[in-house]
Structures are given as structure tokens and as C-alpha cells.
């Protein structure tokens, strides 16, 4: 009989869910764009129940991860999003040695050896270099976050934007706009600003191929490209990049189930 496990990643800005069959096959996934402390976890569960046609009670093991992992009561256990992103990335890219996850309010760089996370670095108490940085900039520029990559690709001129502080960077962007600088060039500068900050963190852990980027920001090809330039390494992403933490949680859930 098949073993069904669920991983739920209750992040700071989104809730993600993955259901796995026998630790191999993804049979359902769901996402809502609100996270810990909101109706996000409840909504994402409702959605996964609809997608899979299975109730939570029918799952063999549920493991929660992410910022809100400890408040998801239906989970049998919790693990940090660090290990879950590492495991999810290893499942998708077996040659991975470095994982870079840019989430809504934090950045992690993980060192992977034989599929296991053996060391990591996280950002300090600052939003610069996180998904929040992009949200703030998109608002100032009056564009959608999802359009940033496309707009940035039309850039013809390199503009430097501060990577030190979101608030300072915001005022820099406003001043560039006031000077009539092209939005596409500003966006490209923002992508480089983020990648510069993240690359600094990555070098503390050490960057080894393959480098995999996970988390919502990995959907922005402008940031991925800028990061490749900063690191001098190819950066791999997955079409299910936002679900990698939830995938890792479902994989750990399977492992725990088998051990039981």
C-alpha cells in the first residue's frame, strides 16, 4: 500500500503544501500568498484536500516547516526550513552542493554534502536582500513583482542601487525616478543589489557547483541572472521553486514514516 505524506511550509509571506506518494511522486500541491499568523495555512490545506481528494486524516505523516511551523497543529513533527530546502533541492538536483533560498523575510545559504545540510548562513535582522526588498521596490516603481524580470531584461544601462538597507535603497530609487532614469535600468540595478548582498552571504559558506536557488524570488530570472554574474557559477532553478521547502518537509515525513 502506498505511503502518502504531506509537507507544509508556513512561511512569512506564503503557505505552501506538497503531497507525496511513496516519497517519490508529487500527487498534489497548493499555495496561498499569505503565511504565518493568517488564514493561509487553513486555506492551503483546504486547497490540497480539493486537489488530492484526500483528507488530512488519510495522510500517513504530516511534517511542518517554515516560520509558522510550530503553530500548525495537525503536523506530527516540525523541522526547520533550512533542512527542508536542502532536502527538497537534493531531490530535484542530486548534484547540488549549494542552496540559496531567498524568502519573504530571510535569506539562507546552505552547504550540502551527500544530500545533507552540514552548514548554513542566514541574513541578519535586515530586509535588504530578501523578497520584501523586491515588494517595496515594485510598489515604489508602480509595477507588479511578477513583471520585474521582464522589465529588467530591457535594461540598457547599469545603475547602482544600495544593498545596505531597504529604506535607503527605496529613497535612492525615488531619486533615480525623479532624475528621469529608465525604470528598466533601475529594476536591473535592484536585481544586482539583491544578488550582491546574497553573494556576500554565500561566500561565507563557500560556493560549490551545483548551485540551486529556491524560494519565490527564484521565479525572477533577473535576480537569477544577476546572481550568476556575481557568483560566477550557473544557478539552477525549478518550476516548483516556491514549493521546495514543502517538498523537503514531505520527503522528511516519508523518511519518518518508513522509520516508524
Amino acid at each position, binding site marked *: 500500500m502506498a505511503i502518502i505524506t504531506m509537507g507544509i511550509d508556513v512561511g512569512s509571506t506564503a503557505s505552501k503544501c506538497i503531497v507525496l506518494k511513496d516519497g517519490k511522486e508529487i500527487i498534489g500541491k497548493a499555495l496561498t500568498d499569505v503565511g504565518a499568523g493568517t488564514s493561509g495555512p487553513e486555506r492551503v490545506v483546504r486547497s490540497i484536500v480539493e486537489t488530492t481528494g484526500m483528507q488530512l486524516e488519510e495522510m500517513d505523516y504530516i511534517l511542518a516547516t517554515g*516560520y509558522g511551523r510550530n503553530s500548525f497543529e495537525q503536523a506530527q513533527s516540525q*523541522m*526547520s*526550513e*533550512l*533542512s527542508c530546502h536542502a532536502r527538497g533541492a537534493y531531490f530535484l538536483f542530486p548534484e547540488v552542493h549549494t542552496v540559496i533560498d531567498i524568502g519573504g523575510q*530571510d535569506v539562507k545559504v546552505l552547504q550540502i*554534502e*551527500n544530500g*545533507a*545540510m*552540514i*552548514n*548554513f*548562513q*542566514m541574513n*541578519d*535582522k535586515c530586509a535588504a536582500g530578501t523578497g520584501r526588498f523586491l515588494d517595496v521596490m515594485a510598489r515604489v516603481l508602480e509595477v507588479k513583482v511578477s513583471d520585474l524580470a521582464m522589465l529588467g531584461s530591457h535594461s540598457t544601462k547599469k545603475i547602482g542601487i544600495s544593498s545596505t538597507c531597504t529604506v535607503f535603497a527605496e529613497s535612492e530609487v525615488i531619486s533615480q525616478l525623479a532624475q528621469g532614469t529608465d525604470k528598466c535600468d533601475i529594476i536591473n540595478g535592484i536585481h544586482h543589489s539583491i544578488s550582491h548582498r546574497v553573494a556576500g552571504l554565500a561566500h*561565507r559558506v*563557500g560556493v560549490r557547483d551545483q548551485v540551486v536557488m529556491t524560494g519565490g524570488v527564484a521565479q525572477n530570472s533577473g535576480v537569477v541572472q544577476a546572481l550568476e554574474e556575481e557568483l560566477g557559477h550557473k544557478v539552477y532553478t525549478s518550476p516548483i521553486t516556491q514549493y521546495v521547502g514543502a517538498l523537503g518537509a514531505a520527503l522528511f515525513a516519508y523518511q519518518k514514516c518508513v522509520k516508524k
Partner: protein
Amino acid sequence: MAETAKPKKTVSPGVLALRKVVEDVYADARVAKQEGKPVGWSSSKFPCELYEAFGLNVVYPENQAAGIAANRDGEVMCQAAEDLGFDNDICGYARISLAYAAGKRAAKKLDPETLEYVIDPNSGKPLKDENGNVVIDPETGKPKKDPKTLAPYTELVDINELWAMPDGEEKEKRLAAIKPYRQMQMPMPDFVLCCNNICNCMTKWYENIARMHNIPLVMVDIPYNNTVEVDDAYVAYIRGQFDDAIKQLEKISGRKFDEKKFEDACAHANRTAKAWLKVCDYLQYKPAPYSGFDLFNHMADVVTARGRREAAEAFELLATEMEEHIKSGTTTTPFPEQFRVMFEGIPCWPKLPALFKPLKANGVNVTAVVYAPAFGFVYNNLDEMVRAYCKAPNSVCIEQGVDWREGICRDNKVDGVLVHYNRSCKPWSGYMAEMQRRFTKDLGVPTAGFDGDQADPRNFNAAQYETRVQGLVEAMQENKRLKEEGKA
């Protein structure tokens, strides 16, 4: 009503003796002040042997600030300093101390009309019934509070304003409302002793206190050590300053330098250091006979009383107790030790329970700290004493710093390193990123860093800290597994 009381923690005679030593330092200073004798404030690594030779009473603002922070009054005092114009980027200890020096005190809030305490309904512990179950309030559905444990709100008062009030009931009640713990009752200074080996912020901090009170500042400047060996020119420079400090202390005390008292203080300081280092070294045993966090508590004695005989005796007693634990394979750590880590930096004193909780939950024992043994230095003559005072965590180069830490990590057999990026201490935290990289490269152990502060609770986030600790534990688990499987 009978309550199911928790089993009372037993405190060993050694720990009790250490607590008494610190209590006595503060009590002696209060008595000296009442008797009109001069009381000094000293930085933690000022050569105490010098003032002990004059029998002067001295207290320690760093120890005081840690105590105020641990008593949850760090934020109100830091804010008070910021209101006086000190930047919030300055060390939290300095801000607390400067606010205190300016007369600011944390007090229990009084109703201005009735002069009764204003109780904070959010304080206190849940009320329990005779079976030890929490009593729920039927009206709110929330646990009822035990009225005996409810505490008043905290408010900031200015002792200079209180002293200026006309004598009477109100003045008495307002003075009595100042928090009673010893650090909030420390006497004001008549002179200050500053040695910048512990950090350079200290110089301006003490200059400000000296200016506020118009009192003498005895300054010992220790140059930063760019090399592992202490240069002979440094020794000559510092010995010259010792001579000058002695002249200043003769003026302050109105007495001549007492060679015999100086030698006694040196002997006590060496004896204290030896016993202290012995206690620190016992963390090398597996399981460790105690938690490294205890060392931070005992540091109060090394800082405030290392030149006193009583401190040496108390540490020797503690060392004996630890030897008993080692012989019987027991420990005072309140959980089984699954992982051993080095805790890098000063603890977040205002958030000790939040700091300890995830460590305890994951069986992580702190078996190495660099800050504590740094206060144990042994010497045989004046030149060696000078060289010893040149070696403080923030006055040595990175090579020396890495060497100290990696040595202690190896000796104390750690599985990982937890680094406190202390917003109060820029020189310390500044080179930690490189140190973390070196620890992993040289020792093959994972490391995790978290943001916090030694005294200002606004710089610490419990949820971020928990994730980092959990990540470190998971990385240590994987490291162990890979080593066992021969893959690492």
C-alpha cells in the same frame, strides 16, 4: 490553598559562596558611601590589584548593567540614555550605565494620588488549584493570575529629583519604589577607573561619567595587539601608566601605596584565576559537569572580586564540587547532553529563558565559552601582569582570537558553534563572520549566527533565534551521521 510546588532547585555551597562574595562587594560599597569614603566605578579588566593596594571600594558598571538587563530593566534604561542624547548604536551596557550615572532609575510605578503601586495585570504567574492545575477564569476563558505574583508596572524616575523633594511620606515612598535589587542600588561614583583593553567604547563612556560627576578619571590605555606576542614597548608604556595611576589613587584615597596590600591582591587574583580556569576546564568532560551558561553567572565574581581572598576560596570550593560531579558522572545541567556547542559572545541577558529554551529542548549543552576563561590570567611578576592585561577578547588580533577559540573547541569537544552577533559589541561581532568561516574550515563543525544584544532586548527576535538553533541541531545531526558513515 495547597499548591503542587515544583521541586526546589538546590544551590550548592560553592555557588552560594560565590553569590555572597558579589553581594558583599555591593554591600561594602554602600556602607563606604554612607561613611563618606570614596567609591569607584571600574571597567571589568582594569588592574584591580592597583586599587586593592589602597583598600578602596570599587563596583563594576558592566556587571551592574548585565544585572539590570537580566532583571528586565535594560530597555527602560537604554531608552533613558537615548533620551539623554546617547545614540542607540552605542553598547547597551554603556547606555544603561550612563543613564544610571545621570540619575535615572527603574522604579515600581506609583499612583500619584494614592501613592499605591499600580499593578500590571499582565504580570504574574497563573493561579493553580490544589492539584496543580491552572485555574481558568469562567468569564474570560483565560487562566486566572495568582494575585501573590502580580507586580507593579515599571516607570523611570530621576533620583536627583527625588533627593530634591521635601522630606516626608511622598519622598520616602518614591525612594522606596526604586527597584530593590543590588544593581539598581549601586552607590554613585567618586572616581572612575578605565582600562580600554575590554573595548574602546569604554574610554568615552568613562569620560562622560567623569564629566557628569566632575570626578577624577584614572585611565590605563592598552594598545591593540596586532601581533600574537605583546611588544616590549607596550609593556613599558603600560607600566608607566601604572605608576601614574598609583599617584592618582594616592590622591583619591589620601593614603600611600601599600606594597604588602598590593602583593596580597596579586596573590588573591592569581589564586582566583587558577581556580576559575580549573572550573572552566572541567567543561572538557563528557558529559560536562555543568552548563557553560553557569560560567557567565559566575563571571560576576571574577569581574568584581578577583583580587579578594573570598573569591578565590569560593571558586576553590566550586572546583571541588565539580570534581565530585566528575567522579560520580553527574551534572547540574538540567537535561541530558546530546550536543556540545561553543557559545560565542556575551549572552542576551534580558532574554536568558528564550536563549536557553531551544537549547534545552534539543539537548544542546554549552560546553565552551571564550569570554569566561579570558578573565582568568595568571602571572608571576609585574611585567607578566601587564602582558596578561593586554590579552582581552577585544584587544587581540584575529589570529590570536581564532587560536583561543579553536583550542577551546577542540579541548571541550564541541559539535557546533552558536555565534551571538551582539549589536552592542561591534568590535567583537565585526570579525565573527570570518571566524565562523575558519571554525567550519579548521574544525569541520557547523556554525549558526543570530542577532541579539547583551542588554537591549529590542535587538533580539526569539523566532529567528529558534530557527537558527534548530538548523544548527539538524546540521550537527547530519554531520554526526556522515562522520559515522565515514562520508565526512
